[in-house]
């Protein structure tokens, strides 16, 4: 078992493609995305059509990558898109995959 960071990003669907570019850029080797809906400080995000839905991206990375990722999110993406991001500790097996 090895300790890594799980970074979760919940964002508007329009941010999905640009975000996957960023994930590649910082060196994340894989990620998972799914459509979600919910409420934010600007009211409900209607998930009735794909274009206005929310997307949750999850990526497991090394701690130093998580810091780069969160810093770049704050600088480049938060001013542009509706989104939140957070990191949590996870224990993984098969550490070579990350």
């Amino acid at each position, binding site marked *: 078992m090895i300790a890594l960071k799980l970074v979760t990003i919940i964002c*508007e669907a*329009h*941010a999905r*493609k*640009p975000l996957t*570019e*960023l994930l590649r*850029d910082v060196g994340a080797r894989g990620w998972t995305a799914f*459509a979600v809906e919910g409420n934010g400080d600007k009211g409900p995000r*209607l*998930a*009735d*059509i*794909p*274009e*206005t*839905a929310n997307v949750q991206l999850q990526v497991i990375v090394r701690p130093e990558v998580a810091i780069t990722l969160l810093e770049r999110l704050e*600088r*480049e*993406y938060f*001013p*542009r*898109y509706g989104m939140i991001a957070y990191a949590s500790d996870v224990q993984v097996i098969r550490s070579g995959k990350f």
Partner: protein
Amino acid sequence: MELFDAVRANLLSPAVLFFALGVLAAVVKSDLRFPEQLYAGLTIYLLVAIGFKGGVAFADAGFAEVWLPAAAAIALGALIPLWSYPILRFWGRMSVVDSAAIAAHYGSVSAVTFIAATNYLTAVGQPFESYASAFLAVMESPAILVGVLLGKRAVPKSGLPALTGSSRQVLHEALFGRSVVLLVGALVVGGLSGAGGMAKVEAFFVTPFQGVLALFLLEMGLVAGRRLGELRKVGVFLLGFGVLMPLVHGFIGVVLGHWTGLSLGGATLLGVLAASASYIAAPAAIRLSLPEANPTLSLTAALAITFPFNLTLGIPYCLAVARWLYTP
């Protein structure tokens, strides 16, 4: 009188009535909800059906007949933002980026509005050039490009670093976005397979078309209705803009169609395309390239004001203008 009859024929069509039902269901907060996958599936069906039919007609008419109105459609799409921008900027006192973003939405087009217009023309027995769906395909992107340029040129450096590969993504979306691929692809397939191919798929793509459209508009009524609350946020100016610009653009589109040799029905469709505003392709491109723009303003104007207006009144208005123009 002519306008009144044209409007009544439209308002009592199943498609528009189902749209109204959707709006009503959203307003009373019914739990009625379409699965997202059904929405995506119906979109694919409608775009393929309209593209295929257009392709068959395109092959029949030949390039010589189509290129001039198609060029007019592209030019109109690119020009609409150029006069919409100053109106928004100086009369509406909107910021530079918001003006550019909204101008891009209004120059680009709404496929559903176009499809509803072909349905309406069929219902009132007005023949039209089916290859007009090629105009729909070529009018989506030029306005977005012009709007982005307007916004970029005028924005003082915001200090935001550029996103990795964002201009490549905008270009990729404009050329290979799913609506472009479906529509252009179906046009080519229709053109290659011709009338013989049409006979094979007619039972699926033509006969059930009106029913599918009615179902889709029920969903669009829900989508538009849920956003009516946003109207409070956009202000009186944008409300007026969302209703008056379709009238002006519809008129210009019909006149251009007349000049470039389209029939009465074809000119009506070019008018409807000019009058419509994009709420799928434009928001995606603008979010990427003009992130400072407020998406609530442009999306609410296009989706909650202009789309319902065109669906109910704008389409019969364009037909009435065309009938007036084509009367010797």
